[in-house]
């Protein structure tokens, strides 16, 4: 049969396309990591893991609650081998799908930064802070407690990121420390005060630095990243003295019980807790390393000096969706 050139071209293209698609769907090989941590923050570190161990990884970046919900939805079909999350609540939400980690790994970091049943281990810590514009706000007038931010003086001046995982986890912590009623009151007061909302912590820090808004509730390290990028900034961090607003929250990692690459997955977790990776968190992301002996950035107050609310991080997951509901009901979301 004599076929015309176009039809032959089309056939060749279809065959090529099918081959290309088939090749790309090979899902046996690399270690699949679901990362609730931002690619800009941890991408280079994960590249180093492959460079050093030769273990190929494929990373699915997303928000921590999104990936936790995805893992729950996937159940036993989950392609993920490792879940590297921004907050303990997202890890706790999938705890029953994670496999207990060996004691040799969990013992590396202080017990309060890991799961009570060893399903996940903390990797790096970050403190909630109030970032403020030094041109418009005097450090002395900033309160010690997040509950004082509902004072009329601060109306409409303190930005929040209601959809951000860290903010939601902070609200969940507030539910645990101060109860649901007080949390709802606080959220409603913030909403009634017209607190400006932003999609992310980094955006709040930029807005504060640009003079768009006076202050914001964020994690401590975004400011340092901005300093590293721009050199000179007008924003500064204020560490609160105790309560949920002062919470040091660990990012953590766990291994899926359904993984068929447990040895590689464990090497990945060990890598995140190695001297090298911990130093990376200190130098590049300006977080608190959790491995004893690795120093945090000198510009940060030592982690031991930060007053901590007394909560069990493993219990945070139970309050997470309640926190989202309260945020939505208050009209912030």
């Amino acid at each position, binding site marked *: 049969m004599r076929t015309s050139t176009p039809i032959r071209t089309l056939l060749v293209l279809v065959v090529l*396309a099918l081959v290309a*698609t088939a090749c790309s769907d090979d899902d046996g090989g690399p270690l699949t990591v679901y990362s609730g941590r*931002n690619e800009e923050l941890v991408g280079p570190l994960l590249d180093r893991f492959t460079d050093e161990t030769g273990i190929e990884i494929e990373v699915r970046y997303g928000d921590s609650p999104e990936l936790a919900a995805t893992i729950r939805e996937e159940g036993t079909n989950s*392609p993920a081998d490792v879940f590297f999350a921004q907050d303990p609540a997202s890890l706790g939400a999938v705890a029953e799908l994670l496999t207990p980690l060996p004691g040799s790994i969990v013992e590396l970091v202080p017990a309060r930064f890991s799961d009570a049943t060893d399903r996940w281990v903390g990797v790096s810590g970050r403190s909630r802070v109030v970032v403020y514009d030094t041109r418009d706000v005097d450090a002395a007038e900033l309160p010690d407690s997040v509950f004082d931010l509902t004072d009329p003086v601060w109306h409409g001046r303190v930005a929040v990121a209601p959809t951000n995982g860290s903010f939601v986890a902070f609200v969940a912590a507030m539910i645990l420390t101060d109860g649901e009623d007080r949390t709802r009151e606080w959220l409603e007061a913030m909403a009634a005060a017209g607190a400006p909302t932003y999609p992310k912590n980094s955006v709040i820090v930029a807005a504060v630095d640009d003079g768009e808004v006076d202050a914001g509730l964020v994690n401590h390290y975004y400011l340092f990243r901005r300093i590293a990028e721009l050199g000179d900034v007008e924003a500064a961090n204020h560490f609160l003295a105790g309560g949920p607003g002062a919470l040091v929250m660990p990012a953590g990692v766990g291994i899926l019980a359904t993984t068929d690459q447990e040895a590689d997955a464990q090497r990945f977790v060990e890598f995140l807790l190695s001297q090298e990776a911990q130093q990376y968190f200190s130098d590049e992301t300006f977080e608190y390393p959790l491995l004893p002996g690795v120093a945090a950035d000198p510009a940060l107050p030592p982690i031991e000096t930060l007053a901590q609310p007394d909560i069990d991080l493993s219990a945070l997951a139970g309050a997470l969706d309640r926190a989202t509901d309260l945020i*939505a009901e208050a009209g912030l*979301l």
Partner: protein
Amino acid sequence: MTSQGDTPVGTLLQPPRAARRLRRGRPSRWLWLAAAAILAPALVPFGMLLARTLANAGRAVGIAVSARTLELVVNSAILVLSVSASAAAIGIGAAWLTERTDIPFRRLWRVIAALPLVIPSYVIALALISAGGASGIVADLVGLQLPVLRGWPGAWVALTISTYPFVYLTVSVTLRRIDPSHEEAARGLGASPARVFRTVVLPQLRPSAGAGVLLAALYTLSDFGAVSLMQFDVFTRVVYAQYAGRLDRVPAAVLATLLVLFAVGVLLVEQRTRGRAAYHSPTPSRPATRAAIGPRSTTVALGSLGFLAFVSLVLPLGTLVAWVVRGSATGPAPTIDWGATAGSISGSFLAALVAVAASIPVAMLVTRHPSRASAWTERISYAVFALPHITVALGMVFFASRFLGGLYQSLTLMVLVYASIFFAQALGSTRAALIRVDPSLEEASRSLGRGHLRTLAGVTIPLIWRGLLAGGMLVFLTTMKELPATLLLRPTGFDTLAVRIWSAAGDLLYARAAAPALILVVVSAVPMYLLATRDPT
């Protein structure tokens, strides 16, 4: 462009209403199978969303009647109405100037007025956001601090720029086709150009302008990228926020279902408007004479078109270029992300290929075997194209993670969803080409002993080759710009330019977002250029 239905953009904007009556026996079962296969990846997700909503009916009702949902409805309605109004004014005005007046550089203005189609809405939004503010590009270059556009004003401006070309294209094609004698009679009786436009031209434009405006409205309701970057709370943005921010997926499913219902409402209005046909004769006897609008009006007209070109093209593209330059001055030089570029091109190419391949049997079904069912097939494929893609993607994530095993998070599945949601573009183009092929040629081939497949390969496809190519380029172009379905469905580790832009822009890393945005515009411009300059006969 000879007639609206024959050009790829024209078929997209206004699909031909009725196929030529040709009953040639019953359609083969394979044709129906092809139609079902290409539309299933978009239709199954809707079923999944609905099932999930109904399974949680109590909560769904609670969410549907909440104050928050009311706010979303109001915000979405305000945005759709305001964008439709401004897109209509700009689209009709620009079309009249380029088609009916004697302003200079008309050919150039025609190209310029359609060009924003190659720039995704979120790239325009990115440029508008990063131009203003204390650390914006305008402040950096000229020391003038523009206000940062956010919320409704920002979304309104960005989406007006993205959607006025739909109105412009439908209206200018119609202007070329309506019988000029009425206008000339009015002018001969002493009416001013403005009066002729108002009382004679505008009423005749109403059907096509209406179609263009409704397309703009649907686009606005479906848009995800621009409203998200502008932080304006409409359905699409909140569906994604609920998906990304919660462990519980029910609220996202319920809101997505509500969004689909909202969009179906707009779509029904559109279908009804389309039913009322145009006033124009199919081929005008002669081209219209252009109104001489005088030197002062010419200055105003050129000024307006110049301003439009500045805001919709020079400002966005200039801002991106300036960010790339600024980025290379302060940090490591922006590099071309080859992985993301290859991801964008390969994903879009495969989608175009699948959509075009599937469009051949479905177009055969629609043109050669017209029936109520085949008309519905066509209508459904247009509806799928018009409905918000984030809802399809969300439903597919629900469905695939539970039922599709190895296809879940695969390139194959993402390509199938792309091809399904953009299928209407390929179908429109293939159908327009197929309608001009005399079926007796195929019959001759078959009567000479060639089977159906060999007739298709040897006779039909060579005759409609150009139509297939045009449809493929349209699918390629729109898939390149697609954002929400890519975000939700991409395979782990698979990167596209759209995803790179989205992730960098979300972190306010404008210098890092600008380079992939420029690459995306350049790659999209190639098929757009080919489509625009292609000989339509």
